[in-house]
């Protein structure tokens, strides 16, 4: 296992600048998630760390080694792809064992048939079979070793892909949206399994996703990336409660944070309030924003109240505990007021203003 450092990494595809001066440190054994909408450059950054793409400038360090110019196979990282990328003609055991046979056996030993006659092949194969069995047991796929990928379910394929990654104990795991091809229920289950696996292996993991619930539930820290720039790198809780930019505040959290444009003598800015930090008050209460209820979403444990406010394009949303009080009715005129101390203030450029 090893720490990873990206410094001033830039990358362009043609005229499009995909990564704009990205610097990021990942500690040894840390689970770091790169979170962002599609096209923000998060996968590109991961592929640059993996060695599948070259950075135009800047440096990548894994452990104590600078790896920018090394090919992917020499960087000692393992990758799990969204499509799993299993070799369809190989059994599960062969799939998991491939990274080992590539490293422990030479070209001649790997030849089918002839390779078995060469010295060392038998010992090498035995060692590989044992390591493969160990990895398979750790992932509960021991009974599937002789199957082909086409005979596996999505979740099983996912485990095989993980097995292929962990079998050679790489310096770091790189995961590119590994759960997005699974159905919703399995995704939630794999989320906790994956975190547990990461803790157990003490592995450094970089996890790319556009799904904020994955990012929030699994990570030690989340790096939010928007339009090729790192916006904020922080533990999930801090990211939600204490965003550095308006963009992060808007990207993280569902339903989206309420944003009000404010203007004063020193220039404009934004006030942002999380839906759960809004309280419903009488329309004429002091400090209240008045509007009409457009929609009430009952979600069981809570209700979301959408309020149309004259002069605002989007409705304001308040999240109410279901038990707290009577839900407002549609069409009713009500007031919304932020709870004391829960307003996040941003300047005109979207940067956080504290105090």
């Amino acid at each position, binding site marked *: 296992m090893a720490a990873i450092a990206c410094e001033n990494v830039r990358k362009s595809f043609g005229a499009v600048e995909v990564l704009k001066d990205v610097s990021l440190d990942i500690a040894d054994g840390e689970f770091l998630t790169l979170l962002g909408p599609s096209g923000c450059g998060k996968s590109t950054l991961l592929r640059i760390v993996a060695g*599948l793409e070259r950075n135009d400038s800047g440096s990548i360090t894994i452990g104590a080694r600078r790896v920018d110019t090394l090919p992917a196979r020499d960087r000692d990282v393992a990758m799990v*792809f969204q499509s799993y990328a299993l070799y369809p003609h190989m059994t599960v055991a062969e799939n998991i064992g491939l*990274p080992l046979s590539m490293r422990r056996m030479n070209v001649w030993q790997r030849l089918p048939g002839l390779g078995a006659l060469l010295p060392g092949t038998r010992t090498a194969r035995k060692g590989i079979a044992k390591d493969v069995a160990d990895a398979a047991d750790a992932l509960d796929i021991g009974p599937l070793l002789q199957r082909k990928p086409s005979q596996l379910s999505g979740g099983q394929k996912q485990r095989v892909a993980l097995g*292929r990654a962990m079998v050679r104990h790489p310096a770091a795991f790189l995961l590119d949206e590994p759960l997005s091809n699974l159905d919703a229920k399995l995704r939630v289950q794999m989320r906790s399994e994956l975190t547990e696996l990461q803790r157990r292996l003490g592995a450094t993991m970089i996890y790319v996703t556009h799904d904020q619930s994955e990012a929030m539930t699994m990570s030690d820290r989340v790096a939010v990336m928007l339009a090729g720039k790192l916006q904020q790198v922080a533990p999930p809780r801090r990211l939600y409660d204490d965003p550095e930019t308006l963009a992060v505040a808007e990207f993280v959290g569902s339903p989206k944070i309420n944003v009000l444009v404010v203007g004063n003598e020193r220039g404009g800015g934004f006030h942002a309030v999380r839906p759960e930090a809004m309280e419903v008050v009488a329309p004429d209460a002091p400090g209240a924003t008045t509007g009409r209820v457009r929609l009430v979403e009952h979600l069981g444990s809570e209700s979301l109240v959408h309020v149309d406010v004259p002069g605002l394009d989007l409705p304001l949303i308040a999240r109410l505990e279901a038990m707290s009080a009577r839900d407002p009715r549609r069409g009713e005129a009500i007031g919304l007021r932020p709870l004391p101390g829960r307003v996040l203030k941003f300047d005109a450029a979207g940067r956080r203003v504290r105090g």
Partner: protein
Amino acid sequence: MADANSAGNPGERRAAYTLISPAWVTFSVLLAGPSLAVVVLSLTDWQLGAPTMNFIGVDNYAQLFADRVFWKSFGNTAVYCMVVVPGSVFLGLGLALLIEGATFGRAFYRAAYFLPVTSTLIAMAVVWEFLLHPSVGLVNVVLEQVGIRGGDWLKNPTRALFTLAGIGIWQSAGLNMVLFMAGLKAIPPDLYEAAEIDGAASAWERFRCVTWPMLGPATLFVTVVSGIRSFQVFDTVEVLTKGGPNKATEVLLYTMYTEAFNFFRTGYGAAITVVFLVVVLALTLLQVKAGEKRTHYS
């Protein structure tokens, strides 16, 4: 069909038969009928235009299998196939890999190598005749420049069949190339990246780990199609050698053609055709069976 039958509703059943009737009619008239007619003809002594026809059982086949020329012809066709199939399959694969890997001029090379497929082989055979002319042909003129005496490509009995095979490879490599390129396009790029991270160090390793196994279905299809096509070799033989010298390039279809249309022994020609059909059928079945088992990984 099965559903309509099991439903047992007469109206539905009638509709089902009506709907499949065009397919059945064309299949019977264009495929099954002629094939059956050939099989029946092969059991008669009919000659083209003759007023009478006698049923003579398997006499045609007995005569055929006792005929030295038939076996020579069958053997030549087999040798031709065994040269052309691997030659054109591997050349096609090589071209496809080179063109896919190229950074420029892909469209040009693709078109250039596909040209022989689109051109009429009869016309191209005439061009080859000029190229291969012993004294003034381009091939020998070029060879002479580097000090090699080319000799006669088409009249030398040990060489003529292989010359034709060379033309066969030239003609079908382009089609195989296009089929392989389609196969290459279908390989998910993720697999190459996974192989790269897993430690596949060289182009050869990536080929062995990903390209070759993933091309399995394409390779099988290309091999069988090449086999059937080269088994049907006729045009070049007819134009360039007429089966000579001394039956050295006598091939199955050419024998069939001379028997049936030069000597008008239609029944005998039909028997050769049946042998031909059986071989083609066997190749096709081989593809279906092997395809199910080995190359689709399911």
